[in-house]
Every structure is written in structure tokens, then in C-alpha cells.
């Protein structure tokens, strides 16, 4: 629906359709890896789906996806999709050795659903947040959204490279603590980009704020800060 409103012509494609060759990933301009659950989130959220996307070799989905990313086509991972992109090694991007960041159980220890305010990083290379002068208001709904890094050097590098594209923040710019940061993510990280700027993953659900009436204070006359703009930027970059 969000891709549609943003001017795209989206199609929901099942993983099996890509694997069987019924559909070819490289026939598309943009990929959204959506939220929800995959494989019951057994072994950790997104882990098994990441295995599907990470398999390499000739004519594998992993190779097609690597080429898709290599060519700069936009890829947006939301919630379970973000977890999958991180666990498949596509975010924050090229790295040697073990995975530099992960998404793990919320600091609160339980699933949580609430609206959050996301501040875009104006220096991020992400094509999705290009030109965004105001933040995004949208809900989170997850149990494993706490972004943690392997070490401080990793966080420093993410910050220096401006890959931290969206952070949990507050509308009055006060320090974001719980519940503004709903899961205890390091440096309030809500979304990460790759260095090329064409892959973005985030835990919150921007696709759930694409109509004014979805605003949590719409009945109080408040509007704006919609998540639709991420999709518009994505479609524009195709």
C-alpha cells in the first residue's frame, strides 16, 4: 500500500516464487523486505530468513540479491526485514569476520507496541532519507529490536560513516530514554544504512503511517511526520 501511494507498482512475491524462477529479483527496481514473522522466528528473529537470502552460488537468491544491492537498487528492510538484512550481512554492509551488529531482545524483556519519533541524520548517505527536514512518527511492534554492536569501535565507525540514519528521538528534542527509545538500542539507533546509501533497515513501521488518520493524535488535530516519505524517496531513486 505504501509503495503504491508513493507511485510504485508493487507486487507481493513469495520467496518460493523467486527460488523456483517463477519470478526474477533482477526484473524489479526496488525491494522491500517486510515485517511480520519468518519461520516462527525460531533461532532468533530473521535468522532463518537470512539463511535463505544469504545462500551464495550460481543462480542462487543470495547472488541475485548481492547484484541487486551492488547495482544500487533501493532495498528497504522493515522490522523482521531489518533483522533479516542484518543477519544476512547486508547491513551495515561489507565487513570482514563476525557480524559487527545484531538485533536482540528488548531491554524491557518483552514485546512492545508504541508510537516512536525518528530523527533523520542529514549527513546519512541513505537515498531513503534524502531531503527529509522533519522526523517520522510511526509505531514499533517488536520483541527483538535492540541494536547492539560488537564493540565501541564499531559504534564509533557507524557514527563516523553516518550509517546511523534514523535514531529514536523526542518531539521536543529532549534526551531519548525509555519509552522514546523503546528497546534500549545503543546510541538510540532505529535504522541503519549501508555505505552506498541504497539499503536501509529500521525496526519501526513507516508503512503504518501513510494516511493522516493513522496519526496517534489525529483526533486532536495533529497531522504530518508521515512514514510515506521513505517510500517516495525509494521509488524516486528507481
Amino acid at each position, binding site marked *: 500500500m505504501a509503495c503504491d501511494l508513493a507511485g510504485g507498482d508493487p507486487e507481493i512475491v513469495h520467496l518460493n516464487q523467486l527460488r523456483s524462477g517463477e519470478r526474477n529479483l533482477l526484473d524489479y527496481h526496488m525491494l522491500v523486505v517486510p515485517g511480520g514473522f519468518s519461520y516462527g522466528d525460531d533461532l532468533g528473529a530473521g535468522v532463518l530468513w537470512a539463511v535463505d537470502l544469504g545462500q551464495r552460488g550460481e543462480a542462487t537468491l543470495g547472488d541475485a540479491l548481492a547484484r541487486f544491492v551492488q547495482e544500487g537498487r533501493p532495498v528497504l528492510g522493515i522490522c523482521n526485514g531489518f533483522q533479516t538484512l542484518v543477519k544476512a550481512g547486508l547491513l551495515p554492509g561489507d565487513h570482514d569476520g563476525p557480524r559487527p551488529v545484531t538485533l536482540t531482545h528488548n531491554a524491557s524483556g518483552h514485546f512492545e507496541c508504541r508510537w516512536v519519533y525518528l530523527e533523520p541524520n542529514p549527513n546519512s548517505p541513505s537515498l531513503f532519507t534524502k531531503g527529509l527536514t522533519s522526523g517520522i512518527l510511526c509505531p514499533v511492534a517488536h520483541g527483538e529490536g535492540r541494536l547492539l554492536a560488537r564493540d565501541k569501535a564499531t559504534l564509533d565507525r557507524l557514527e563516523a560513516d553516518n550509517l546511523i540514519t534514523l535514531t529514536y528521538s523526542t518531539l521536543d528534542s529532549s534526551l531519548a530514554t525509555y519509552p522514546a527509545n523503546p528497546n534500549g538500542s545503543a546510541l538510540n539507533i532505529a535504522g541503519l544504512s549501508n555505505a552506498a546509501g541504497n539499503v536501509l533497515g529500521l525496526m519501526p513501521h513507516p*508503512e503504518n503511517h501513510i494516511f493522516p*488518520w493513522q496519526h496517534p493524535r489525529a483526533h486532536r488535530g495533529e497531522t504530518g511526520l508521515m512514514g510515506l516519505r521513505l517510500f517516495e524517496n525509494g521509488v524516486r531513486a528507481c
Partner: protein
Amino acid sequence: MGEELGATVELQNVDLKYPGLRPWEIWLSEAQERMVLAVPPENLERLQAICAGQDVTATVLGTFEPSGRLQVYYGGQPVGNLTMDFLHNGLPRRHLQAQWRPPVETDHAPDEPVSNPPAADMLLALLAHPDIRSKEDVIRHYDHEVQGGGAAKPLVGSAANGPGDAAVIAPLDTQEPDHPQAGVAVSNGLCPWYSDIDPYRMAWAAVDEAMRNAVAVGADPDRVAILDNFCWGNPNLPDRLGSLVRSAQGCHDAALAYETPFVSGKDSLNNEYTDEHGRKQAIPGTLLISAMGYVPDVTRTVTMDLKQAGNFVYVVGDTRPELGGSHFSLVGGKIRSQHQAAPGPVSNALGRLRVLHQAIRSGLVRACHDCSEGGIGVALAEMCLAGDLGMEVQMRSVPVDPYYAYAADEAVLYSESLTRFLIEIRPEDADALSAALGDVPHACIGVVGGTSLRIHPRLPDTADPLLDLSVSALRQAFTGQAQVAVQPAPSLIHAVPTT
């Protein structure tokens, strides 16, 4: 599925999770996430292709055929063969004894005016009562924004901590170009404390509450369907069955009065426990009514939080001092004997709901909250804490059934009479609202503003307010962050069975 035709089933075709199941175990297993479909033979191949594409197993179990029998085979061997008529109609009807008697009053309630703790203490105790206090801790554990359909959230207001009357869900893929987005209000009604007094009134009150909540957010009262969910004791005992029958009569009569169909339901019976004297006790007869109401336009929905200082607050519907089983009594409030009835049915409640719905659809209503647990008093406090705005309220303006014109302040403030709402409107809409509500009892009782809820008593010559509480004090009690001076009377807390 085969009741009117007949069916033949081969159990060896059923996919099993593990081997070694006997035929009757395969036939009766309640393993989850399985569905039986009736598929015309010419569509079978297409269905199997769809299932295969999603890694879903699908097997052919048998055929429907006009035999009038259910014939079950395992590896070609017959293991069951019954007529459909016997299967569906063969069970002989049981005859059970049912008996219901109104409760016997053991302690004599006073006829004279009673004295209660200060009204402010009572309101804070009510806000902290487990039935009333914030459910945010629980609600946030569930995804109430799935697929972006939340047009009215379960938690509303300036800081998303107010208790919404009902959620409105808009299925996004139903949007038609140039048409308003329609939605569905999902609400419920639950009044178990009235059960011991009168299960008939309890059932009626639960239907009324579910309807109120749906209409309060913008559902059309003529397009509401309801479900029942009974939790009761052992129905083989005449008194348990008697109260169950009486509540079912209440459901029947209320469904006809509100012209709303019961579309489904479920039950959980035999909820009994043994008390410290070795006696069997049933849980309070508990009936949950869930309602689903059609919302024509999700942009014309209403939430319960106060919106704007200077706006007027109205009460819609008249109040009778009906405090039997009320939350006022649960937190230790004393009640005069003539006020101890459970809330009774309101004549032409549906007409009242229709009129309110029209007022909401025409955009006159800025906030709407139903009066339920804790009556007008709690509803006022909840509207304040959700909107982070205060209010000045004149109790003498509340329409009261003339028969009870001399009822005490707290009997009016905390009565749980049915089919009542509080609404907020802009001052300039006062005439239009009165015209819309017509002969439905209603009155302006307050003005939004300030940072505290100040309620003035019904006696005109009293200078001091009945209570004056800051919005932050209300919120602290509601969120469980305040010590409340008044605690529930222990005798009124039912023991909870452990199984």
C-alpha cells in the same frame, strides 16, 4: 460440513506429525493450524498448486456424497459408519433443574443518609481499582497497529495513556477511490459484579456497555453484531444453572431491544473451587459481550480525551441512583438501601444510541466517553487525564430521574446507570447539539479548562466544591503510582479459583 449430504473419509490420507496414531486419534485430534475445505474436483489441481507455492501440505481426505451417512475408513477398512441424522440429532435431550432466587440481604443497609470518606478519596480509590486503572502495561504487549489499521487506538489522548472506549480498525485494502475509508469498531461489555444481584440485569448491562463503547467511537448502532462468552460454575447444580438461564434471558431480551444479532459465542463451565470450609463455590457468573460495529468513515471517529479549554461537557442520558454491585461499593462506599439495585434496562436505549451516532457523524462531538465502572465521576476523571486538561463541573445540572431528585451527590456521581455518555462540544455547537439530541435527556454540566477536576455539589447553597483534584493526581491514581487512602472492603473481593 456433510450433515445434509453424507461423506466418505480415508484416514490414511491425513498427514501426520508423527507415526503410530490409531484411527480414532487421527479422526479426533485437535492439532492446530489445519483446515478442511470442500473443493470441486475441477479446482483441485489449482488449489494444490497454490498450496505447494507456500509450502503448505494439502491432501484429499474423501468425498461428499448423497449417502446420508458418515463412512470412515483406515487403509480401506471401515472404522466408522453412522447416519448423519443420528450423528447430528441422535443425542437425547437432557433435563436439568434450574433455580434462581434474588439474594437475601444479610446486613441491613441504612435508610438514613450514610457517611462516606471524602469524595476526593473515593474518586482516587476508584481510579486505582483493578477494573478501572490503566491497562497500558498489558495493551503494549500486543501489536495493536498490525497492518496499519488503527484509526482509533486502544490508548488515546495527548500522551496516549487514556482508556479508549473501543478500537477502530480500518482494513486498508478495502479503500475505494473517492470514498471515505470505512472501519470496524471492536468493543466489549463486562459487568460481573451485578451477577450476584441479578444475572438478568448483568447480561443486559453487558450488552449495553458493548453497544455504548462501539457507538462512542463512531460505530452505527444499527450495524452492530455481538458475541457472548459465558464463564460459569457447574451447570448441573440448580442455582448455577438458574443464574445462567436468567442471564441468557437477559441476552435474549437485550439483543431484541438493541436489534443486534448474536453471531457467535463460547463458554467455559464448571469453574468451581473449594473454600477453606470445604464448600464448593462457583466463580461469579461472568459474561463477556464483544461487539463489532460498522464505522462508515474513520475520519469521523471520536476519542474520549478532552480536546480544548473553553469547550462544554454534556451528559447524555439520565441518571438513577443504581449502585448495587457498583465500583463505588467495591471500594467501600456505603449505599442507602433504596439505591442497592443493579442498573436496570433503559427504555428506548437504541433510540438514544441512534441520536448520538447522528451527532457524532455530523461532526458535533469533539470527545465522547461512556459512563461505566465508577459512573460519571470516573468518566470525567478519565477524560481529564487523557486530554491533560481540567474541568469545572456542576453536579446540580446532571439530569436525574425525578423520582430520585433528592439523592446524595455520590449516589449520582458514582451510579452506574446504563446508556449514558459524556461528550465534549465547541460552545458554538450547543444549539445544534440540543436540536440533534431532541428529547433524549441531556444537559451541559461543565466547562473544560484549568489543570484540575473541580466538581461542585448538587446543593446550590454549598460554597465548597465536592472535590478538587489536579489532573496529575488523577493520572497517578489511574496508573498505580499513588497510595490511595481508601482500600476495597475485603469482604467484597471474591476469592479467585486457582484452576
